[in-house]
Every structure is written in C-alpha cells, then in structure tokens.
C-alpha cells in the first residue's frame, strides 16, 4: 500500500493520537456515558486505519500487523470470556458482576465492578478485530492464503 502526501501524513499523525485517546476514553467510560467497548474500539481501530492509510506499508509489515491484530483480538475475546467466567466461578452466574460494590455510584469510574474491565476487553477485541478486517479487505491478498 502506498502512503499519501505529507500533508495528510502530518494531519493523520496529529489526529491519530487524539482518536486513540478519545477511543480509550469512550471504552473506559462505557458504563457512565454513552458509548462503551464497541464504540470506543471502533475509534481505536480508526486511529490505526488512519495511520496505515496515510503512511502506507509494505507486505511484510502488513503481515506482521495482521498477525498481531488477530492475536490481540483473540486475547480480547479470551479476556472477555474469562471475566464472564469470573462471575460464574466466583459468584453464581455467568456474566454476573463479580466485583461489585453495592449498585454502583453515578460518575465514579471504578464503582461498576466488572463492567469496566469487560468494556476494556471488548474495546481490545473490537479495535484489533476491525483493524484486522481492514487489513484483510483493503490491504493485501495474503490473508486468505495463510
């Protein structure tokens, strides 16, 4: 994939950091404000996609980033299942909030118990997954040949 003009590259470099930050914010505050793991994860992925569109890449790095993102995606999935299982094992029910303090307090980040870690897991999974989809669709032909 070829890169784009320096103007785009500079702006993209500026924006990507912000996007990433904003994405992380939305992931973290999913239980307090609109948004959550999926919406934030999409933003995180958008940051990566923006970078790779702007700067381009060679097949070698694409392959690496594809492998990496699919591994991270799986890890996110595993993490999420583990969190859900934590409720199953520690309390009683699958998906039960294993570390809750009462019913939670509005606008307090860590009062949601397991919701925050779950959102983070989803954010990781969605971010990495979307980026992998992007690579698979747009970037190269190698993915299916693996």
């Amino acid at each position, binding site marked *: 994939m070829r890169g784009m003009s320096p103007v785009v590259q500079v702006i993209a470099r500026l924006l990507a950091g912000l996007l990433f930050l904003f994405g992380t914010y939305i992931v973290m505050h999913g239980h307090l404000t609109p948004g959550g793991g999926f919406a934030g994860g999409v933003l995180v992925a958008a940051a990566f996609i923006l970078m790779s569109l702007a700067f381009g890449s060679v097949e070698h790095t694409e392959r690496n980033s594809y492998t990496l993102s699919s591994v991270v995606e799986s890890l996110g999935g*595993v993490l999420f299942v583990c969190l859900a299982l934590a409720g199953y094992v520690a309390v009683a029910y699958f998906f039960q909030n294993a570390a809750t303090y009462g019913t939670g307090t509005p606008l307090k980040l860590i009062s949601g118990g397991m919701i925050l870690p779950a959102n983070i897991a989803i954010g990781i999974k969605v971010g990495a997954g979307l980026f992998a989809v992007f690579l698979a669709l747009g970037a190269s032909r190698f993915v299916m040949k693996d």
Partner: protein
Amino acid sequence: MDARFVPLFVIIPLASAFLIPLFAKLWQRSADLIANAVGAVLAGLSVYGALSLFTGSQVLVYRLGGWHPSLGITLAYDHLTALVVLAVNIVGLCALLFAVRYLDHYTGRWKFYALFMLILVGLNGVSVTGDMFNLFVFTEIAAVSSYALVAFGTDFDELEAGFKYMVIGEIGGAAILLAIALLYAKASTLNMAVVSQVMAGFGRTPLFWLIVAMFLVGFAIKMAMVPFHAWLPDAHPSAPAPVSALLSGVFIKVLGVYAMSRVMFNVFGLSRANAAGFFNLLIGFGVLSIVAGGLLAYAQKDYKRLLAYSSISQIGYILIGLGIGNYWGIVGALFHILAHALGKGLLFLTAGSVEHATGTRDLDRLSGLEKRMPATAWSYLLGSLSLAGVPPFAGFFSKFFIIVGALSADMYWLAILAALFSTVTLGYLVKVANRAFFARRDREPTAAREAPAVMVVAMLGLLVLTIVLGVGFKPVVDRLVGPAANVLLQGLGYAQGILGM
C-alpha cells in the same frame, strides 16, 4: 443436572473459538486437539444433560448475570432443548473427528476450527436461550460463520454458493430482526416466557399475524422450506464435508425448525385448536418441500447436491409432523430431527470420504467404490436406508410416528403422500449407492483408498448411533422425545416452568 451446566454449552465453544487461533500460532496441530477435545466435552455434556432429564422432568432455568427474567437473559434447558443440543453436539463431534484428516486438502486449518466452534456456539446458544433477541444474535453468529465456511474452499463454486447463501440468509436475518422489533413494540420485553404471558392477552390481530409471518419468513429461509430453499443446494455441497454434515444435519433444524417451533408454540401459544390456518400452512409448505425436494434430488448427478435436495425433502417431513400438531405428529417430527441429523450427517461424511479418496463427486465418474472403500459404502447404504425409513434404523420410527399422527388426525392423503415419497427417497438414495459404490463398470476410479481410520471411526460412530436409536427407540421416545413433544404441546405453559410459578 445442575442449572450451572447450561451456559457451558455456549461458553466452552466460545472460549475455544478464541483460544484456537492463539494456540495455532504456536503449534499448528493444536487446533485439531482443542477442537476435538471441545467436541467430545460438549457431546459428553449433552448426553449427560439428556440422561439427567430422563429421571426428572423439571426445566432447568439459568439466569445470565443473575438478573430477573423480565430484565435479563435467561437460559432454559428442557426436554426439547436437550434433544436438539444432543443432536447438535453428537453430529458436531463426529464432524470434527472427520475433519482431522479431511482438512489435509485445505489450508488455514485453525480458521476452519474457529469458525466451526462459532457455529457450535450459535447452534447451542439458539437451543438453550430463552430470550428473543439472544436467539437472533446466536442465529447470526451461526449463520455468519456458516457463510464463511461455505466459501472456505475459495474456488468458483464455493464463492458463488457462499455469496448466494449469504444474500438469501441475510434476508432471513433481517426478517427475524424486524419481527423482533415489532414484537418488542407490542410486548416491551424480549424474554420468551414474559413475552408469552403478554401475548396471551393480546388478540389475534393483523399485527399479531404480521409478526408471526415475519418470524416464519426468517425461519423458513434458515430451514430451507420450499420456496425459500434456493440457497441450500448450492451452499451445502460447496462447504467442506464436515461442515456440510453439520449444516444439513443440524443447522437447518436448529435455526429453522427448533427456533420456529419454540417461538410459535411456546411464545405465541399457537396450537391446532386455536390457529388451524397456521398449521395447515405448515403442512402445505411441508408437502411442497417433500415433493419438490424429492423430485429435484432424483434429477441430480452430484453426490452432495443430491443429498442437499434430500435435506429439503426431509425438512418437509418434519414440517408436516409439526403441522399435524397432535402428539404423534410432533413426536415424529422431533424424532426425525434426531434421525435425520444422524443419517444425513453420516451421508455427508461418506460424501466427504469419497471426495477425499477420488477427488470428485460426479456420480457419472464414480463407480464400483465398494471394492476399495467398503466401510464408506456400507455406511452410506445403511444410512440411506435409515433416511428412507427402513427398520431397524432410526428413520423408520420418525416416519412411522408421522404417519400415525397423520392418520389419527384423519389426514389420509398426507399419510399416503408420506409413504409414497418414502419410496422416492429410497429411489434417489439407492441411485447414489448403485452408481458410486456398487456398479461394476470398467471405469473404476484409480487410486481410491479407504478413508483414513479417523474418518471411518466418525462415520461408523454415526452409523452405530443410527442403529442404536432405531433399536433402542423406546427410552428415547418415552423419556426424551415424548416429553419434548409435550413441551411444545403445552404451549403457553412453558412460561410457568421458566418463571417458576
């Protein structure tokens, strides 16, 4: 069985679907191991669950996240669920076992297993869920994974079939989603038990029937009822054989038949007494499926395509069994779900074995394989006899019960048709046996060798189960299929079991 085991049917394959890619990065063959271990665990669990329901008759209710039914998602495990889950996981295990050597032809082994696990997640999830939207989500998980697996070979046919399957299948998904939206607008809840209580007080207005019709469109597409069937004869033959076995064996029945009957009987409370029109419609389209599927199967020259059309025809039998709507009809339909899952799974595995050995599934190019591949040949023959309804195999009893049901409901023509098309079934299935396995022509396929031991074990496993289900039909009918039919027949009584009233 403790209710805590219920979510395991979803958790285990889901977790393994994420784990398989991770471990496969480290060691390629670990995918085989994990997948088969998971398949075995699931099969064991489903057998254990079914056996534990043998003794009691209670419904196991599991509240996801500990939420009350009207708020959270509940999982329910009753006899009907147990039956479907049993079929799914047994066929799944055999298909996975078969896949170990079958996948030698393909690259991307771990992708196959991960997707396969996701299909299992979807099928098990649809079976155990007690929530409408959850049903949709699991349907889509299974469906999307199956689209990908149909196109797994990424050659001309596979891609075409995959795309067509996806387009038609997604129309079905959209119809289900629309129906759920309408249902939510009416009932303001999505828990099946609560919905059914709300619907009980809701008149048979056009809106009610619109919701029913939209659900029916969605499920009809998933189960490939004629005229919604066009995708199936493309998709099922194009998938790798283990996937074909799973798709034809259980996929269409869980996403289509099971989901439809659960929603129509237990959520909407339809029964022959209060909605004869709906049941006659099932019978009408069932007959259409039997006839069109059977005739089309007769005209095929492709091994797997013939089997795929046969699945359409057999779905028709299940539909008329449900449409008859009395105890024996439903028992027949549910027994046929089991019998057809085992039998058709077996036949698709033999197709895979033949394709593995000879590289073709064109019946004109195959002949006399019985000499080289006796296990495959005889598994095929006995499996096809089971499907056609020859005792002592399982298929006999399902057709028998369906005919009993039809005759007790005074539907003579239906019984005659069912018996007549059993002969057509016999005809087209034996056609394959004759052409591929038993004909002695000069053109013997070269280099055909009996399938590797693992594949033979998978086929024989299904064959033995078919015979066991036929000979030992008594406990299965008494303890599992009969109570499952009662679950459907009790209609809205389902809600009481879930809500614990």
